[in-house]
């Protein structure tokens, strides 16, 4: 039997800061060698969950194992096997690129003979070779991020935790960055990455959607789309604003988002023929529009699951 190997598990993981519940009863199961995403708005508990998994924070309740090791008891021996890239650039800005890498290689006690080779290898992979002598504080956002990833992967960790790694990076650099991540995953590294970019989340093998500390959905992007309890209709109207106002009056429509000249309308699964309903509404108001039912994207999924949770609560 080809059993899938599990890198990270969590059950009932909870973190309370006083009366604030930052992470609420999160269960996780992350497969080895995959890229797993945490998608959620700011303050949804992504960073806190990552910090608990790294052993930086002690959970208020629940437990987690990383590579089979308990994050409460074995966090110290775990540190040699995981890499962590903080949300904020946390290398020494007053040291050069080369000095930072050398420092990290010594902290991880990479054997002396391999140290220089490994540093040069990383400089090459992350195209920082011409920046060796530059102070890292003067690097651009993309370069800083590449340096941080280089440092996080220097000791060849089995699991890589990336906390919003691309928040200060332009689109081209983001693309390159993800290429590097896929390469690492291919070599067997498990990667857990948090983000609030939908396009990044869509690249993950599977992901969890977090909202106010709770996991509201998980699975691969495809699975999430199929499981969604809503229809999505895309409308290309001549006058999107009037169309929007007209559709707002319809109670069965749960959300309307405008994307340029297009409107994205979400209707609950209970509606049998969403396309007909929208067409009828628009015709009533004598508005010309092209409508089409589409496969939900991650943003739709995100809106649907968070909305559902709020409704369940109230």
């Amino acid at each position, binding site marked *: 039997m080809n059993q899938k190997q599990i890198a990270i598990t969590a059950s009932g993981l909870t973190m309370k800061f006083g009366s604030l519940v930052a992470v609420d009863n999160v269960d996780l199961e992350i497969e080895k060698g995959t890229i797993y995403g945490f998608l959620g708005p700011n303050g949804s508990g992504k960073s806190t969950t990552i*910090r608990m998994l*790294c*052993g*930086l*924070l*002690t959970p208020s309740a629940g437990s987690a194992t990383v590579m089979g090791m308990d994050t409460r008891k074995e*966090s*110290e021996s775990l*540190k*040699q096997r*995981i890499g*962590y890239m*903080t949300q*904020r*650039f*946390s*290398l*020494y*800005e*007053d*040291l050069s690129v080369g*000095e930072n890498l050398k*420092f*990290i290689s*010594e*902290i*991880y*006690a990479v054997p002396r003979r391999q140290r220089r080779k490994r540093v040069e290898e990383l400089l090459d992979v992350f195209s920082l070779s011409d920046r060796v002598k530059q102070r890292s504080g003067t690097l651009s956002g993309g370069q800083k991020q590449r340096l941080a990833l280089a*440092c996080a992967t220097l000791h060849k960790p089995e699991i890589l935790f990336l906390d919003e790694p691309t928040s200060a990076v332009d689109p081209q650099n983001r693309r390159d960055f993800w290429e590097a991540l896929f390469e690492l995953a291919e070599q067997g590294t498990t990667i857990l990455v948090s983000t609030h970019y939908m396009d990044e989340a869509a690249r993950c093998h599977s992901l969890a959607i977090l909202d106010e500390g709770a996991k509201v959905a998980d699975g691969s992007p495809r699975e999430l789309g199929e499981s969604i309890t809503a229809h999505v209709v895309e409308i290309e109207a001549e006058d999107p604003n009037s169309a929007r106002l007209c559709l707002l009056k319809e109670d069965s429509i749960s959300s309307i988002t405008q994307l340029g000249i297009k409107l994205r309308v979400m209707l609950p699964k209970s509606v049998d023929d969403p396309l007909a309903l929208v067409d009828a509404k628009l015709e009533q108001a004598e508005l010309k529009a092209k409508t089409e039912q589409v496969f939900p994207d991650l943003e739709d999924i995100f809106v649907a699951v968070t909305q559902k949770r709020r409704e369940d609560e109230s």
Partner: protein
Amino acid sequence: MNSLIRVLAVMRKEFLQMSRDRLTFGMIVGIPLIQLLLFGYAINTDVRNLSGAYVDEADTHLSRQLVADITASQVLVMKQRVASVTELQQLLDRGEISIGVAVPIDFDRRVIARERPAVQLLVDGADPIILGVAQQLAALPLRFDSQEAQPDRAPLMEVRNFYNPERRSAVNIVPGLIGVILTMTMVLFTAVAIVREKERGNLELLINTPIKTPELMLGKIFPYILIGLIQLALILTLGWYFFEVPIRGSLLHVLAAAMVFIAANLSLGLLVSTVASTQFQAMQMTFFFFLPSILISGFMFPFDGMPIVAQNIAEALPLTHFNRLVRGIILRGAEIQTMLDELLALVIFMVVTLTLAILRFKKRLD
């Protein structure tokens, strides 16, 4: 082996950062230099050149001689001569003079009769040091040349000035300054060095590596021990050059005492860094500790003159013990073996603070 690599890595990084941080680099040399010159010249308990004024209602040969004698003592600089005691008092009220000399009209008769004091000194007694000076002035001898000498009474007590025959304050101040400067720089530097990493986010990365707490702390402390020793050498050299402070004891003993004292202050700095979360807080805490150290350690005022409560508090400050050690060795040529209890006090302080620091510093964020 891996531990050693990590400690060395932290040390090397610390030196690199220090060499690039011009402000810190400047402070290493600047603080001792400026404080030594400032305190060395400014703190002077051997008071001279106080402003004074006098009224001479007698205006005789003898009264003029008295004023000349007082002026010659250099204790008072006679700013002006006024017409009445009332004017003298006004000058005193306005703070223009510290001591006023009032010679009454029957001065000569009083000197001969010796029944009543012949001269009155009006003193701004708010400052006890000035009062002390006035009391010395009051002992000034004066009589007519023709007057029969008083029966030669030997004074009850005689003062023999050991260790500082020229009565120079710098001799006492400079060794004391070693401790003051080291307290300030050592506590502050270590505290800030770690809190800075917290503030800049470096620590979040570091605690996620296999580095162990003692490795990190040792790597952070060692570079500053070296800096402390550089400062020590600087102060001793400058003290000898500018103020001619002799080193009567063994230099090796000074070094030994300083090492223990530096280590004690560094551990305190580490403890501060585990409590403070910003560099500003670290600075405030350092000064909270630094001020009493200066005031009640015996650096400023004689230790035995303080109330018992203050003395007890002072015993808990490393500077108190270091001052005794270093003044003993430098000024009295004492052997360090004769003051082992002072050394022990420093060691106890270090062990307690270092233990607390290591216990408090967690490789976790909560």
